[in-house]
Structures are given as structure tokens and as C-alpha cells.
């Protein structure tokens, strides 16, 4: 308590806050766990071919496995956030890693497709949900000035690991058939447990204050507690709702090129290899974009929210330009626009999460991220089938890309309605409002306890 760095009222994140030290170790842990979650999810295509042959199901039925897994990951994100608020992040991440591995290990014994939905979809998806949001929130809490760069570096693992995992999984399937390969993948996923063990637990200071001293274990009190863990009160705050809406709109259009670019290139008359190269090129600039935008954002020349709006708007524009560029039949134009799109889409991913603590404050970030993941995922679920439907109706991809490109632009416009958007400096991050706001004494004690986490991590960084 002797080391309260600054006056709580005029706290600005530039002055206090951890940056580096143990944070870099956590960043490495996030790198590994993100690649084992999303990189693994993206490379499951190798297994789907085997499943189609073994179970004699259509490839559409088999692709539901990864849809279920992704949906479960996003659906259980608020649960993961709430559990971190209730207990500690280390326990949650280690449990999540164990569940993710368990799901894959059980999947190796599957005898029908339904087993795979349950194990690879639900159980592993639950595990991934318990892993991703807590780890991201923990890393973000451990960086302040270099937060965006840290996120950019961590998320670049997704692209890099998909490059590495595809041939690796192919090799595993050739050596051990899909059962053995899934078993080994389950083992690899258990490494997330080791990543989770690296989290140094810090107590959640607000939790004791939230619990009424004379708490009756009645439904109302329990619900109050649960809603505070889930940060449901955020849903009533305009800045957060605005931001979530903007990100959801972005999500609706964001995935369309990943699903339809190859088909569109083939339809425009390019060969299979050319179409695949376009995707790979976009993927490569995606990785580059994440890291560069993270580094650039931390130079603090511009506000994060402005940079995010810029990348989002550009991404929307480039999505719209994609069908236009191939209209003229020029392969170079298509490749260039895809490269630019890849860069912008990677750039905005680094920033999308980094803006959240600026809106809701570092303490509520965990729950905020969980809710954000859940809400944005539903928009993502709607966006891709819509573009497919447009393609079926009109016969080509022009309409679907146009509509898909308009979603991020709408998102940018929504972001512009955030409070203090047009000012040149960031507004001060919001103070934590406790539910019983009357007690000023309790409030000031809260402020002092808020500084504790930074103390803890500073000491552990020594």
C-alpha cells in the first residue's frame, strides 16, 4: 500500500501499469495457446477429408464439426470470463486446456459423427472458450504502453501456425490414421495447461466488495453476483453497446473473403493454383498487418479508436473492390487488392481487442471481452450464409462482396458515434462503479485495492 503510484482520480494509463517483464512470458504463453486454439481449428480440413471417407457422410455434415467448435468457443467466452472473475484466471485456463485436450482425445475413439460433434465440437469448444478470452485479458492487463504490439504479435501466431499445422497434420494422419492423429493432437492441446500455469494469479479485488457481508444465499443475491462476474451491467452502457455493435457489423463482413475468395477467383477464370495463391498471399499480409499495426499503434501518433476506424473502413473498401478488380480480368489487380485486404484485416484484429479497456477500463476488461466475443460471433454466423445466399440469387459474387464490404463501413460509422470520438486525446478510462455506490468510503477503498494488482505484477516482475 505504500506504493500507490498515482492519485486514483487522475490516473492515466501512461504513468502506471505494468509493461513487459513477466508480461513477455505471458505473451509467449498466449502465442502458443492461440495457435493451439485457432491455428488448430483452421487446420482441421485435413481430418475432414478422412471423416468423409470413414463415416460416409457429406462434407457439409462434417464441416459442422468446426462450426460447432467455433460456436462453442465464442458462446462459452463469457462463461470463461465470469469464472475468471469468480476464481482466478490460472485455474480457468488450465481447466480449459485440459478440456480442449480431453475433447480431442475422446474424439479419437468416435464411432459416429455425432460423437465428433460432442467431443471435438462441444467439449473442445468449451475448453477453447475457457482459454482464449482469459488469456487475452490477462496479457492485456500486463501491458499498457505496448499492449497493441503484444496483441499483434500474439495474434500473428494464428496465421503462422496454420502454415505449420497443415503439413504436420497431414503427416500425422498418414502415419497414424485420423484416430491416432487426433490422440496426438489432444496431447498437444494439453500444452495449453502449461501455458495457463504461467499466469500468476492475482486476486480480484472487487469480488469481496461485491459480496454483501450479510449475503443471503437467495436467488437475487446469487444472480447479482453472477451478473457482476459476467459484467452484464456493461450491456446497459452506451459506449460498450456501441462498440460491440460496431464490431459485430465488422464481423458480419470480415469472414466473407475467407470463405468465398477462392470460389470467386475460380469463377473469374483463374486456375486453382492462382486462386489458392491469392488466399495464401492474403494470409501472409494478414500476419504482417497484425504485427505492423500493433507496433504502429503503440507509437501513439494516433488514437487507437481512430486507427481502428481507418483499418476497418479500408478493409470494407477493399472487400468491395475485390470483385471489381477481377472484372477486368487482371490477375495482378486481384492479387494486389487481396494483399491490401489481408493487411487491413490483420491490422484491425490487433486493435479490436486493444480498444476495449479504453472503453470499459482494465478491471472490467475480462467480462467485456467475453460478452464481446459472444455477441460478435452471432453476427459472424449471419454474415457468411447471407453472402452465400446473395451469390445463389445473383449468380456471381459481386453482390455478396459488395454487401459484405458495406458491413465494416457501417461498423466504422457506428464507431464514430462513440463518446469523445472526435477529440484528439483519449478520454480517461472509466472508473469502476460498484453496485452500492453510496458508500464513498467503500469507493475509496476500492480505488486503493485497484492499485493492488499493478503492485503485485510489478513485484512479480522483479
Amino acid at each position, binding site marked *: 500500500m505504500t506504493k500507490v503510484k498515482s492519485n486514483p482520480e487522475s490516473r492515466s494509463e501512461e504513468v502506471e501499469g505494468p509493461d513487459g517483464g513477466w508480461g513477455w512470458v505471458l505473451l509467449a504463453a498466449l502465442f502458443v495457446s492461440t495457435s493451439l486454439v485457432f491455428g488448430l481449428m483452421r487446420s482441421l480440413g485435413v481430418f475432414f477429408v478422412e471423416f468423409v471417407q470413414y463415416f460416409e457422410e457429406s462434407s457439409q455434415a462434417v464441416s459442422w464439426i468446426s462450426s460447432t467448435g467455433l460456436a462453442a468457443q465464442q458462446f462459452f467466452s463469457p462463461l470463461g470470463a465470469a469464472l475468471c472473475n469468480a476464481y482466478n484466471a490460472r485455474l480457468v485456463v488450465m481447466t480449459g486446456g485440459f478440456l480442449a485436450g480431453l475433447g480431442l482425445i475422446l474424439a479419437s475413439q468416435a464411432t459416429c459423427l455425432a460423437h465428433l460433434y460432442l467431443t471435438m465440437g462441444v467439449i473442445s469448444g468449451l475448453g477453447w472458450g475457457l482459454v482464449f478470452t482469459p488469456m487475452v485479458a490477462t496479457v492485456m492487463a500486463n501491458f499498457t504502453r505496448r499492449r497493441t504490439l503484444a496483441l499483434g504479435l500474439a495474434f500473428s501466431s494464428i496465421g503462422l501456425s496454420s502454415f505449420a499445422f497443415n503439413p504436420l497434420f497431414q503427416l500425422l494422419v498418414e502415419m*497414424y*490414421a485420423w*484416430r491416432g492423429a487426433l490422440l*496426438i493432437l*489432444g496431447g498437444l492441446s494439453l*500444452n495449453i495447461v502449461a501455458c495457463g*500455469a504461467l499466469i500468476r*494469479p492475482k*486476486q480480484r479485488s472487487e469480488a469481496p466488495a461485491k459480496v454483501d457481508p450479510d449475503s443471503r444465499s437467495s436467488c437475487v443475491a446469487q444472480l447479482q453476483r453472477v451478473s457482476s462476474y459476467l459484467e452484464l451491467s456493461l450491456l446497459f452502457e452506451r459506449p460498450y453497446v456501441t462498440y460491440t455493435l460496431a464490431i459485430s457489423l465488422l464481423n458480419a463482413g470480415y469472414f466473407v473473403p475467407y470463405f468465398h475468395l477462392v470460389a470467386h477467383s475460380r469463377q473469374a477464370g483463374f486456375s486453382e493454383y492462382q486462386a489458392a495463391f491469392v488466399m495464401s498471399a492474403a494470409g501472409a499480409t494478414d500476419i504482417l498487418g497484425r504485427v505492423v499495426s500493433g507496433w504502429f499503434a503503440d507509437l501513439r501518433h494516433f488514437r487507437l479508436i481512430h486507427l481502428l476506424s481507418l483499418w476497418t473502413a479500408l478493409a470494407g473498401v477493399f472487400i468491395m473492390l475485390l470483385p471489381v478488380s477481377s472484372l477486368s480480368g487482371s490477375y495482378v489487380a486481384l492479387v494486389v487488392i487481396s494483399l491490401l485486404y489481408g493487411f487491413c484485416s490483420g491490422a484491425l484484429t490487433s486493435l479490436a481487442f486493444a480498444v476495449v479497456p479504453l472503453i470499459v477500463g482494465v478491471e472490467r476488461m475480462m467480462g467485456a471481452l467475453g460478452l464481446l466475443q459472444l455477441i460478435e460471433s452471432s453476427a459472424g454466423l449471419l454474415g457468411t450464409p447471407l453472402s452465400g445466399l446473395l451469390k445463389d440469387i445473383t449468380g456471381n459474387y459481386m453482390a455478396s462482396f459488395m454487401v459484405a464490404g458495406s458491413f465494416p463501413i457501417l461498423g466504422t460509422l457506428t464507431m464514430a458515434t462513440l463518446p469523445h470520438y472526435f477529440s484528439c486525446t483519449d478520454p480517461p478510462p472509466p472508473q469502476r462503479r460498484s453496485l452500492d455506490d453510496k458508500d464513498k468510503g467503500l469507493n475509496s477503498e476500492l480505488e486503493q485495492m485497484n492499485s493492488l494488482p499493478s503492485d503485485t505484477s510489478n513485484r512479480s516482475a522483479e
Partner: protein
Amino acid sequence: MSASWKQLSSQILLLLISCRHINTKTSSPTQPPLAPITPLKTDVRSIVLKGESHTEKMELVNPVNLTLECTWTGNQNKLPNITGYWRKDGEEIQNSRLSVQFHNGQYNIQQVFSIVSEENLGNYSCVFGNEAKISFILEAPQIGEERDKPIISYVGDSAVITCKMDDAKPMPNTWNWYRYNGTEKEQIFVAAEPHHYEIINKERKTRLVVHNLTEADSGLYYCGAVYAIGTTMSHVELKVITFMEPLKPFITIVVEVVVLVAAILLYERSQSKKKATAGDGTTADQKNMLPQGDDNATEGSSSMRQRKV
């Protein structure tokens, strides 16, 4: 019967198409056919050679009396008489040598072959006096996609081996499956072991399902597409492994994870113990931290404790 009419008409169509590109000269046979006249269908294939050699592949489905005709424009010598003969699979066919006249600017030789069964298929060549050669490769429709990597399966599991005939090629009458048992290909009969094997034939595709795999089931399996003229084969290797195989790398990885987690937790405990023994500037809060630091190893019950405090 309609199937074979389809095949005959497709053969004639093939011939007509080849006529667009190749000069055909049908001259009367210079020699009586080698085989006795049987009620087989007849077919003619003619090639004109402009260079030194040419190879022509022919897919045969049904037995046929096939007339192969070779025409050669000759070289600069333009001898009036040269010897021509036929070869099958590299060996000269008996009594096929004859003298060929240089007539209308070309040498012409033709022969009727009775292609009835599999041993009649092969590489037939007409040779003009050791200089020019036209080869006709007669074969039944080959199975296109062959899987070069072995199929891996586990003991007790079922393995599915499939073979497919291209859509462009004629449909086989039926499919047979064979197993290589070290010396020869042995046909698999489902009736002999109905619980072990299952063969499902569906026109162009065939599936062999082997249930209750044992390690003895490993080996080469052949699927044969049966046509009236013969059977074409394609092979796939099946490898049966026990679950021990992937279990070994799996156990290695699990051990590695356990070691890592233990190392991380022990390191953390030793770090916090160091801070405890350092003992300078410890405030009451830091003393509160220490038991928490120790309790971290016991899976996070610390925060629970903290809340009760």
C-alpha cells in the same frame, strides 16, 4: 445386350474420330486372317506412320476380331519390296513375315487378330524391315486413380478399401477382390468369411470392408475390374497397427506437459520463498501475499481464502 451395343458403337465412334486425324486407307486384305472366323464382332484400327515409330493405345472390353492395319510412307530409299512382320510383346509372331510391295507411295500391312481373352492382350507391333514400327497396345480399361499411400487402420477397427473406374471408361461387369498372400493373388470370397469381409459393388465403385482387423490383415489388396476380355487390377496396401503406436508419442507429450507445469509451479514457489527470506520492506500486505504464493501450488484455493478474510 444394350451395354455391349453401347460399347461397340463407342468403338466405332472412336474409329470415326480417329479418321478425322489420320489418313485411312482400307485396302483389301493381302492375306487370309490368322484366326478362324468366329461369331465375334469385328473392328478395324488403321494407322499411317509418317516418322520412325508410333504407339497407339486401345481399350478393349469385349472379345473382338481386330484388324490392325499399318501404312508407311517409306523412307528415302523407297525400295520396291521390304519384309514386314508382326510382333507380340516383343517376340515375333510365327508365320507373320511377308513381303510388302511399295504401292501408291506407301507400304501397307494388315493383320486380323482374334482377341478373346487376357493372354491375347498386349503390345502388338508391325515392323517394316527393321526400320519403321507401329505399336498397338491392347488392354482392358485401366483403373485410373491409384492410392500410393497405405491405408492405416487399427486392430479391432474396420477398414474400407475402395476402387473406382473413371467415368470416361466403360463400366466393368463386376469387381473382384484379391489378397496377396506372399506368393500369389488369392481371391477373397465373402461367403467363406462373412463376418470378416464385406464387398459392396456399385457399378463404377467397389468397396471392400474388412471387419475385426488383426495384424495379419496387413498386406496388399487388389481390386479387379472384370470385363469380358479380362480383368484389370489396382492395388492398395493396408497396414494394421495397434493403438500402442500413436500412444507412444502421446505419452511423451503428456509427460512433457506434466514436467513443464511442475517446473513452472516449483519455480514460482521458489521465487516467492526467496522474497519471503529476503525480508526487507515487507509490509503487512506482502506477508499476506506469501501464503497466497505458497498456496498457488495447491491449485488456486488462495483466492477463495482471500475472500473469506
